[in-house]
């Protein structure tokens, strides 16, 4: 017995079993809370992204998960499109809010970014993000260095041209893709 494999390894086996059971219990107990945390991160932003929206529910349109924003009475008021793309330092993840005909952008939220602190991370600031409110969704937005003159212009961040250009690029791509997906429905 002493020299058999079981004799050598029984402690490891017993420990693995105990830990497995313990981890399973922890996971079962905490998973709903973790999932709701994750969901709140996205759904919780919907009222600020689409005017009049109170809640949202996930849907798959054109192979892409989007959120249908509904008001307190359950009326469809807009869409929230998750989008991601390469920034200056790392991948940027965004939520883009649009009205229900995807004619107008109603808001922008940055879920995840690792841009240069003090420069590129200005993309998370309210002042810069609010520029995207009521921009047209059917023409691509462009970055300018000066105050915007036309409807589809967004002023870039001084010293963080690449970060601001990336965000606009991601928004344009996501909106364009979603618009054609909706049109095909």
């Amino acid at each position, binding site marked *: 017995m002493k020299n058999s494999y079981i004799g050598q390894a029984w402690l490891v086996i017993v420990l693995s079993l105990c830990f497995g059971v313990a981890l399973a219990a922890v996971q079962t107990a905490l998973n709903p809370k973790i999932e709701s945390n994750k969901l709140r991160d996205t759904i919780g932003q919907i009222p600020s992204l689409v005017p009049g929206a109170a809640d949202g529910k996930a849907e798959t349109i054109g192979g892409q998960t989007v959120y249908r924003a509904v008001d307190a009475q359950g009326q469809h008021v807009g869409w929230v499109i998750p989008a991601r793309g390469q920034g*200056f330092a790392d991948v940027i993840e965004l939520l883009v809010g649009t009205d229900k005909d995807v004619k107008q952008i109603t808001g922008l939220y940055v879920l995840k970014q690792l841009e*240069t602190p*003090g*420069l590129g991370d200005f993309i998370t600031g309210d002042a810069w993000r609010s520029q995207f409110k009521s921009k047209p969704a059917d023409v691509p937005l462009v970055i300018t260095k000066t105050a915007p003159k036309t409807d589809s212009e967004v002023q870039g961040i001084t*010293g963080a*041209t*690449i970060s601001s250009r990336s965000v606009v690029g991601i928004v344009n791509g996501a909106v364009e893709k979603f618009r054609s997906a909706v049109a095909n429905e």
Partner: protein
Amino acid sequence: MTDEAKKEEQQAPKAEAAAPVLHVAPGPHAFSTSLTTRRMMFDVLLALVPVFAASLWQFRLYTVIQLVICMVSALLAETLFTAMRKKPILIRDGSALVTGAILAFSLPAKAPWYVGAVGSFVAIGIGKVIFGGLGQNIFNPAMLGRAFVMIAFPAFLGATAYVVPDAAIDGLSRATPLTTLKQLGQNTGLLPLFLGTTNGSLGETSALACLLGGAYLCLRRTASWEIPAGIVSAVAAIAGLMQWLAPVAGWTVLHELFSGALLFGAFYIATDPVTSPLTPRGKFVFGLGVGALVMLIRKLSGYPEGVMFAVLIMNAVVPLINQWTIPTPVGGVVLEKKS
């Protein structure tokens, strides 16, 4: 001054005191007493005069303010850190002044006071004294200080920090030549680049001033001509090749050479005797490396200019270059042992 020379200087009085002993010391037995650290450093300061004049003409009072901040902080840092290490304080050799001046000339005119001050303290403290003082440092102290402040305060040293739209000085309201080329594809005339009526770091704008000061340094042998020669030939070769393959209208090899910090870096920064290779051949290789890296960073990275990073990267390679270029000793090749 080499270590051996220093040792010999220290040993000499002792030998005299113990009179009839035959004194045999390792070479060099004859060395120029005029080639002291102090003389070399003041040579560099003298060579910076044309750069200072051009900068004063272009940026007015900003030059003076930035120079005073950097040089005073560099002297303070040198005193403080050498005192902390209980080493004799050697401010009089002028090396801290040179580091401060070169750092100041590599900053934008409008950089706030703490950029120069923090840069100087990092340059002297982390760049030099930590390694054991002058002669022991691996990296060019001024460039190390600049790299630190560039990452610490990107808003004041990035490409956009150079542009001050409401400045009273005409030059400051435009983007730097390399930035306009990179972002807008516009070219700057050769004459403004040569004379220095463009925007840029304080010391880099005028190619003429850098050439004048650089020629003086090379003639005095304070700087080795092989390094600037290597840098210029590498940049010219790559720029020439690019112009031949994909010509940009109105942008020539000369534009590439005269714009940015290239000439300033080639003559004043890369030639630092402590952080460049020992042999002439090694120096030329070092120069080629810096030039190639500058072009790589200018053309393929997000930065408009790359002299600082190029010099720092090549500094790290210097021990390797020294290994490659060990000169043949007098008397012929050492025969390799057969195994």
